[in-house]
């Protein structure tokens, strides 16, 4: 009964929506809303990368590049070209999608560490452009992002951004769930396990990889746009290698091939540094040790490991 319920494609998005609503109702202050919003925004790019890395098994160490494109689209276009912010978000996703489509075809023919290095190079390239094109991006100091206006109201409060990001994230999870529950979704999971068998079953592996790369790039770009609009300021750090690694870590830590796993990873990577800041100098050390422990004792990631234990406990 419970298992059948859990298989329903609305179960996971509904559960995530419920948790977001409850947390939104109990958070005590703007400070907590800020952190929670950062979790939701990170969760969006983690959801996209989970489709690519967790389900299709294709690594990308350059996804922060797409986050950077999305962030700078809402920073640059309104400031320099008087494009409305909403349209700028759309332009950012369009550019990210097209770039992913163009570079995806040749890059995704590579496998494993070759693919890792190629995507890494792409991310670094974007970060370099953002750093060097001072006239457009403000260089290493970054630039201010004008606030977005919806129905004539200027949106600034962390609370508003929490609800906006929450809505976007739940919609993204619904789309991802739908995709997974279709022939495209089965194909991308199949090519993860055996590319030769997938091809022999008639799956155009190059096409499926390219589709999932574009979707994950669009999600990352959207998350970058949300971040920039929420934060009011962007720097090239958003497209840095470190940020790419952080998104990958969210997926691996929380659970490859589990949408809620990626979100749990986002919670850990955003909240833990804040919680550990109490320990000042030891913050990074503790964070590192904790991640190693999780990966040693929960190899499949937090959510899949716990789900398996839960299922065995019930049987």
């Amino acid at each position, binding site marked *: 009964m419970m298992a059948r319920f859990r298989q329903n494609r609305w179960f996971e998005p509904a559960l995530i929506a419920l948790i977001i609503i409850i947390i939104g109702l109990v958070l005590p202050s703007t400070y907590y809303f800020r952190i929670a919003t950062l979790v939701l925004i990170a969760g969006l790019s983690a959801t996209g990368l989970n489709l690519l890395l967790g389900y299709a098994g294709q690594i990308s160490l350059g996804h922060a590049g797409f986050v950077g494109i999305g962030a700078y689209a809402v920073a640059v276009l309104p400031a320099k070209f008087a494009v409305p912010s909403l349209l700028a978000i759309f332009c950012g996703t369009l550019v990210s999608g097209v770039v992913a489509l163009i570079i995806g075809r040749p890059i995704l023919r590579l496998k494993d560490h070759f693919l890792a290095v190629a995507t890494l190079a792409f991310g670094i390239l974007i970060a370099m452009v953002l750093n060097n094109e001072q006239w457009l991006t403000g260089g290493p100091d970054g630039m201010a992002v004008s606030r977005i206006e919806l129905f004539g109201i200027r949106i600034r409060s962390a609370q508003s951004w929490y609800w906006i990001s929450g809505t976007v994230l739940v919609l993204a999870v619904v*789309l991802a769930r*739908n995709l997974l529950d279709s*022939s*495209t979704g089965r194909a991308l*999971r199949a090519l*993860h*396990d055996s590319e030769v*068998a997938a091809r*022999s*079953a008639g799956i155009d592996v190059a096409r499926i990889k390219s589709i999932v790369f574009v979707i994950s790039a669009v999600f990352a770009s959207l998350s970058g746009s949300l971040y920039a609009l929420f934060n009011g300021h962007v720097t090239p750090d958003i497209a840095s290698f470190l940020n790419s690694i952080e998104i990958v870590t969210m997926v691996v830590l929380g659970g490859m091939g589990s949408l809620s796993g990626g979100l749990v990873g986002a919670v850990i990577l955003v909240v833990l540094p804040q919680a550990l800041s109490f320990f000042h100098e030891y913050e990074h050390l503790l964070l590192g040790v904790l991640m190693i422990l999780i990966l040693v004792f929960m190899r499949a990631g937090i959510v899949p490991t716990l789900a398996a234990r839960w299922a065995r406990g019930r049987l």
Partner: protein
Amino acid sequence: MNLLSVEHLGISFGGVRAVDDVSFSISPGEIFSIIGPNGAGKTTLFNLISGVYRSDMGRVTLRGDDVSRLPPEALASRGLARTFQNLQIFARMSVEENVMVGLHRHETRNVLAHLLGLPSVMAENRRTRDEARRYLDMLHLRQVADEVAGSLSYGELKRLEIARAMASRPDILLLDEPAAGCNPTETAEIDEIIVSIARTGVAILLVEHDMKLVMGVSDRVLVLNQGRVLAEGAPDEVARNPSVIDAYLGHDKGAAGGDHV
């Protein structure tokens, strides 16, 4: 008319002719077997026909069209399906989903509809699942349909490979050692399945070590040795061929306790 024709097919790996000047053809509903000692080039020949490798000599035609240069996915969409000797299972997916992937070529490709989860996609999922279950029934896998494929026994995985290949509704099915590593009961079961598939008009190209299985089910047999055709004909004809006995059947006599069982 011939469904599949192989004409003077060959490939070299680093100067070694793994497959050399092999020709044969198969018609619908026929069971055609390829036998030969280990390293004779049987699996290489399979990989050439199914598009995994590209030949450097000769050609393969399917219903008269040259398909030698086509990738595996293009061959699959022309009705050629295969199984793998070294099990290529989608281990993290359920048994049922494995077979559903087999039906991929009959499903829609509209990604936008898939993302939106339109009612038509849900209806398609149901149709695909229903059809997948028919193949699970056919290969006696229905009771493990919801298990993770990686948890199945070896014999079950062998049958899952066949179920997935059958799900693409092929005109020609390539089976690479479907009974290897199976016990006599499982082998007899696979034997029965192969015959029943051929009876529906599907041509079967079989590579097999199990001589009893090959001689029992095959309409014609081709013997491969060191990449070349040694003999071709009806099973009993081939079994009496002196050079075949020398190269293959006699192998056990010559080297008792040889390299394979």
